[in-house]
């Protein structure tokens, strides 16, 4: 894929962890959705987070990105504590998430969905732009995001005119247009067919080359085990395993909690071949 990366976000440090969660807990009344989870996402990796439905995956993303305030514990981005920061501030610091239910801006075209993500946030500057002539060319970030997601052909369409798979990709592209240092993908493959999933996996694999670390949340074992460098397994809010895909496949606790069901083991064997 010949893709030109946009000017990379200045990285705080060359190596180490982009994101670290320390004893992160989210509790609603008596229900513990995320139970004292500690992990880190290494820079330049594609890290996977899997778990059966209801394991607390989306709650975890919400807590990491400021949509849910953790009951206790802390989150660090590039070494700085960000626990309790508002979502838009985290987004501007390079922590970008997508949504399981896509949530595109339906009044904007695909390209505009990406543009609004790539544009600087200053309101007064935006007001100033009203009074100067337009630059009629795509910004580098938008061009890059369109290239990576291969959405150039539908750039002028509205989200409602696209297939479900394409809409999911627009969600990913919109996240990329923000030039994230860490991209959290919430079930990007849900609702995609096998070939679409495969293509998506290949695209995700290339992102670290462009300075984007990926945290991939999915319940599709096949995708996660084939794409990720490191995988974490969440079950009933507990982190029950962590390791390379091979280690996860062999982990008895994971097999017990997740692969035990016949459907999931089918996915796992898919993953083995993929």
């Amino acid at each position, binding site marked *: 894929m010949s893709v030109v990366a946009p000017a990379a976000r200045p990285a705080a440090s060359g190596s180490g962890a982009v994101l670290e969660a320390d004893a992160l807990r989210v509790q609603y009344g008596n229900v513990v959705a995320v139970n004292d989870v500690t992990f880190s996402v290494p820079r330049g990796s594609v890290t996977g987070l899997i778990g059966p439905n209801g394991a607390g995956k989306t709650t975890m993303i919400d807590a990491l*990105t400021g*949509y849910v305030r953790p009951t206790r514990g802390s989150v660090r981005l590039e070494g700085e504590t960000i626990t309790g920061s*508002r*979502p*838009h501030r985290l*987004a*501007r610091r390079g922590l*970008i*998430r*997508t*949504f399981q239910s896509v*949530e*595109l*801006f*339906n*009044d*904007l*075209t695909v*390209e*505009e969905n990406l*543009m*609004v*993500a790539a*544009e600087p*946030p200053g*309101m007064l500057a*935006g*007001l100033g*732009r*009203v*009074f100067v002539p*337009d630059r*009629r*060319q*795509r910004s580098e970030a938008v061009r890059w995001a369109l290239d990576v997601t291969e959405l*150039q*052909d*539908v*750039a*002028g*369409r*509205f989200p*409602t*005119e696209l*297939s479900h798979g394409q809409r999911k990709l627009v969600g990913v592209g*919109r*996240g990329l*247009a*923000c030039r994230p240092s860490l991209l959290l993908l919430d079930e990007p493959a849900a609702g995609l067919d096998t070939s679409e999933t495969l293509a998506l996996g290949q695209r995700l694999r290339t992102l670290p080359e462009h300075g984007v670390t990926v945290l991939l949340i999915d319940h599709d074992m096949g995708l996660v085990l084939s794409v990720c460098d490191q995988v974490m397994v969440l079950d009933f809010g507990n982190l029950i395993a962590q390791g390379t895909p091979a280690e996860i496949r062999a982990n008895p606790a994971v097999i017990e909690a997740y692969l035990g069901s016949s459907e999931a083991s089918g996915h796992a064997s898919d993953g083995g071949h993929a």
Partner: protein
Amino acid sequence: MQAPRGATHMSSYILFLLLGLGSGAVYAVLGLGLVLKYRSAGVVDFAHGAVAMFCAYVFIELRSNGELQFPWIILPHQVRVASSSGLATAPSILITLVYAAVLGLVFYMTIYRPLRNAPALARVGASIGVMLALQAIAVLNYSTFAVSSPPILPATPVHVASLIVPSDRLYLAGLTVLVGFALAAIYRFTRFGLVTRAAVENERGAALLGHSASRIAAYNWVLATVLAAAAGILILPITTLNPGTYTLFIVPALGAALLGRFSSFSVVVIAGLVIGMLQSELVKLQTVWTWLPQQGLQDGLPFVIIMLAMVLLARRLSARGQITDVHNPAVGRPQRPAITAVSCVVVGIVALLVANTDYRSAIISSLIVACVCMSVVIITGYVGQISLAQNALAGISAFMLVHIAHGLGLGFPLGLILAALCAVVVGLLVGLPAVRVRGVNLAVTTLATAAALDALVFNNSSFSGGFTGLNVHAPHLFGLNLEPSASGVTFGIAVLVIVVLVGLFVARLRNGRLGRAFLAVRSNERAAASIGIDVARTKLFAFAIAAFIAGIGGGLLAYQQQNINSASFTLWTSLTILAITYVGGVGRITGAIAAGVLLASNGVMPTLLDNLFNFGQYQALIAGVALTLTAVANPDGVTQEMGRGFTQLRRAALRRVAGGRPPSTPPLAETPTTSGPPPVGAPR
């Protein structure tokens, strides 16, 4: 002899509190009705006070003339049911309550049921349309003169401790408490209450169990309307009846309903009674503390309560479970704004030169209203925030224009800009609640703000000049006399150029970075935050821009009218501005222009119709009915419909030219916005 004097002092404070029980009872009962309607149908019915007002007229006409009144005009709107000496009180009440039940059922079935799952804007629009229409019908049929009524409940003096209180206040308060208890019991213990709660929680679930949510809502709606009518009748001897004040009972009633979080009957009853008592107490306090504003303080109180309720309870206001498919009104995509602007100026100048004095002033009025409507296009169309206070912002600017000219000696154009900036300050206050609340709740707070501005600011004669109003200095620019009275053409051209510039600004804003951020916030706040958009700041920024544009409109109106008074900026005018913009097409600049030309009371089309058929008096009614119809039938507005028609015509023409090959443009993608994207409509 300090002690006894202190005691009488104290007791007079208590007396005023008790006197307030009367209006408090009405607020409470209307608040209860609002809760019933909201819980069953998901609609905050802004027309609830107007319904009480209309039913009160029905009762009065029955009792004094023996005629049954209908909510329409021109056609005979009364039927004789008894001799002209009128009916007795009891049968009149009974007939009115049955009448109210039918009215509630008809409104629910024709207007609110179709809107059950519509976006907040459509539901707010529909109920405001009903409110404006009922108010306009009452003005046309019964005039704005206040009517009073002989006692209904026994009003004998009663001794309470050392005080003498008219007994009707106590009866009203007692009845209200009874109604509150009865409703709470019905909801808790009967099957009907259980099913209503079930349908609120989960409409589809209740339907699966064989309970039609819409039938349940209809029962609740009828009950609420009957209660409103009863309250409207029983309060008659205490207040006087006129179309405006009764309709505005909705503001304190909303305050009570909000404090009860649209669910607790007991809190609503207490809140309503307390609001009434505090309002009454303010009357006493005004005599003691003479530094208090002497007018409008009572009407400002519900505003404070609504704001407090929103701040304290916003996060906990329950959202009704519903099956939604949010469809926001379509937004326009201005194409070649500069060329459009130039051609608008040319066409406008020709029109101004050709028109006679009447029509020239109609054109200018249309332009000014279009300017204020563009502020609605920005805040409600692009950002999706319902503001019911835009014309009040225009009013702030209009009066400030005069004060700036007097105080600072600044005239056109600097004074106009400064005045519009004053509107921005107030606009930010109007928009502040939008940081925490959205949808219909924002409509409620902006309505309360508009009512408070109306009562406290525009009613303040040192600000607005009282009945005589304020005289406005004629605008001059570079020695050019822009005085509207001269021939009007130069002034007209100045207005034209300013409004077209505002339109050009809005178009460029829409197509640019801010417009995209605005639309992103409108379609999905969560997702907007996820890409780094500060949703709260974006909303406030939009409120500021919209306020500036409304302010420019208000300033121009001041220049045009030469003498302005508060009547030009009442709450009704703000509601009407939203109404006509919504009808025109709230997401489009052409919608604002259509609103100004076709629907504004002094605009071109109404002037034409007025000259032909003496039509002007019906403008408010038409705006209200059109608003409701638009909300129910065509939320995108008339210009969208006209646009569709135009597109079809163009396609038909193209088809003929191209020999039967229709262009494959998808319906929404009229044009790609920026250069470069691949061909639209390419096969996938």
